[in-house]
């Protein structure tokens, strides 16, 4: 159950956690990124996720392998949703099992941070007012047009 994968249906954290069960693991940390009702001051109604799956699966697997290597954890798994998600749904789940808790926290944080920066996944927000937009694209493009507001690639979006 180690590694990175996509899911087109709802993510089941309990089942994923069970897949990392390990009697040598005293600490288990998980992160769930959920669809919020608000982003940067706008009321969100739903999200669509899409990915360049072939590359995303490779890059996601590299990130999980890096975490195992760096933090000496016993197991790690990341699953990301694709398609249309409503408010409160789990968009991404990361679980890490480790002998002790410090490495479990550090590795879980590493995986979600790297996934958000490196894995080719895109999110379109649909707002209550009927508008919609690709996160990090349209509004960053506007910002980039203003001197002193250039945003780099992969600008963290902060959920």
């Amino acid at each position: 159950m180690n590694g990175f994968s996509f899911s087109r249906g709802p993510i089941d954290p309990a089942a994923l956690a069970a897949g990392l069960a390990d009697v040598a693991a005293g600490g288990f940390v998980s992160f769930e990124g959920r669809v919020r009702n608000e982003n940067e001051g706008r009321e969100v109604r739903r999200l669509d996720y899409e990915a360049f799956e072939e590359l995303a699966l490779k890059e996601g697997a590299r990130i999980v392998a890096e975490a195992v290597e760096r933090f000496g954890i016993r197991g790690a798994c990341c699953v990301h949703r694709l398609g249309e998600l409503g408010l409160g749904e789990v968009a991404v789940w990361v679980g890490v099992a480790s002998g002790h808790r410090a490495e479990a926290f550090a590795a879980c944080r590493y995986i979600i941070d790297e996934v958000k920066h490196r894995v080719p996944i895109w999110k379109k927000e649909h707002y209550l007012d009927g508008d919609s937009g690709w996160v990090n694209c349209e509004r960053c493009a506007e910002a980039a047009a203003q001197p002193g507001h250039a945003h780099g690639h992969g600008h963290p979006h902060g959920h």
Partner: protein
Amino acid sequence: MARVRLKYYAVLREQAGRGEETVETGAADAAGLFEELAARHGFSLGRDRLRVAVNAEFADWSRTLADGDEIVFIPPVAGG
């Protein structure tokens, strides 16, 4: 000239009006190909905000193109 396959995602897919296409290009590298297609499709994102993948691996913009290459321009990612 190289005959390459493009796949488009997210905002680029919407602006190109298609998910993929095959093009013949005289561009010397991936950067030149992007500029051709940005002009054709009116992409709003500049090349400095994108990455490029060739055959499902990240590549440099200076990568020369070969017949049969599959090219993806990668908008700023937003997983999670």
